[in-house]
């Protein structure tokens, strides 16, 4: 039984962007985990979870 990828969801206070990071990429991003992909500033944590209903509203940040 699996439950799909688990994300941490953020929004950027500077540009308003909503984005998410898969938790298993914490070691890949290190201190940059949670940063806005546009502004490169730390985002504000919104929630975490897998397959949340508004998942598609958040841009996935990957390598």
């Amino acid at each position: 039984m699996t439950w799909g990828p688990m994300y941490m969801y953020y929004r950027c206070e500077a540009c308003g962007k909503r984005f998410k990071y898969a938790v298993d990429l914490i070691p890949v991003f290190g201190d940059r985990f949670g940063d806005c992909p546009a502004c490169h500033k730390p985002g504000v944590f919104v929630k975490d979870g897998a397959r949340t209903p508004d998942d598609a509203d958040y841009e996935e940040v990957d390598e």
Partner: protein
Amino acid sequence: MAKTIITVAPNGAWPKKENNPNVPITPQEIVHDVYDCWQAGAAIAHLHMRDDQGFGTMSTDKFRETVALLRKQHPDCDIILNLTTSGDLNATDETRMAHLEEIRPEMGSYDCGSMNWLNTSLFINHPDFLERLGKNMQAWGIKPEIEAFDPGMIANAAYYLKKGVLKAPLHFQFCMGCANGIPGNMKSLLFMKDTMDSLCPGSTWSCFGVGHSAMEMTYGAVALGGHIRVGMEDNVMYAKGQLAESNRQLVERAARVIREYGNTVATPDEAREILGLAR
């Protein structure tokens, strides 16, 4: 040419129509997808059931209804059925096994340890449950698909092998990239395989990655001599920002990867031979 087995896990217990409208939920939808994926090259179907509200259930009635429907509508379909034993976090040990005893599928999942579930709950596989399940599956002639979410679960399988709860040769499913499990990347996959080779030599294995690691794990499995699992249980997306159109679409891509590599896609009977299943 080496043969690679494709397992399709069409629905799992969690994704709903809100996540992807193409996830099969009802027995009829599940049967449709199983047949469709079998035609595209899947040799094994790992099945979960949903209740009438769409939530994961271990209802024997739903398993019975679905398997009967598949056999009635598609008598030509010789796909290997692998029924879950972990389809509802609140199920009792009894309801997690009752459908296996009645239906006697060729395979059933065996989650070889407990873990935190999405940092909010518990996915419990108590030692008492695992001992009973392993012995029952031997008695009922059902091959366990040992789901390992981290290397410790492989070590646990080695313990059960020595204890006679499990019987060699084992078949593992490496579940990569799940929260609280081992991350989905090549280094981790190699470590899982090395751990299996040293602790349970002679075992066969398959893997999948949830989310971004799906393709990396697919290619890794083929290159390292493993087998592949795909399906909307693990990934409702086909690619970043693109929902899967069907389970068949995911199976077809896995088949293309296998063929491009130079392997062949194992038929159900070839999979039976690889896994040592007596039909």
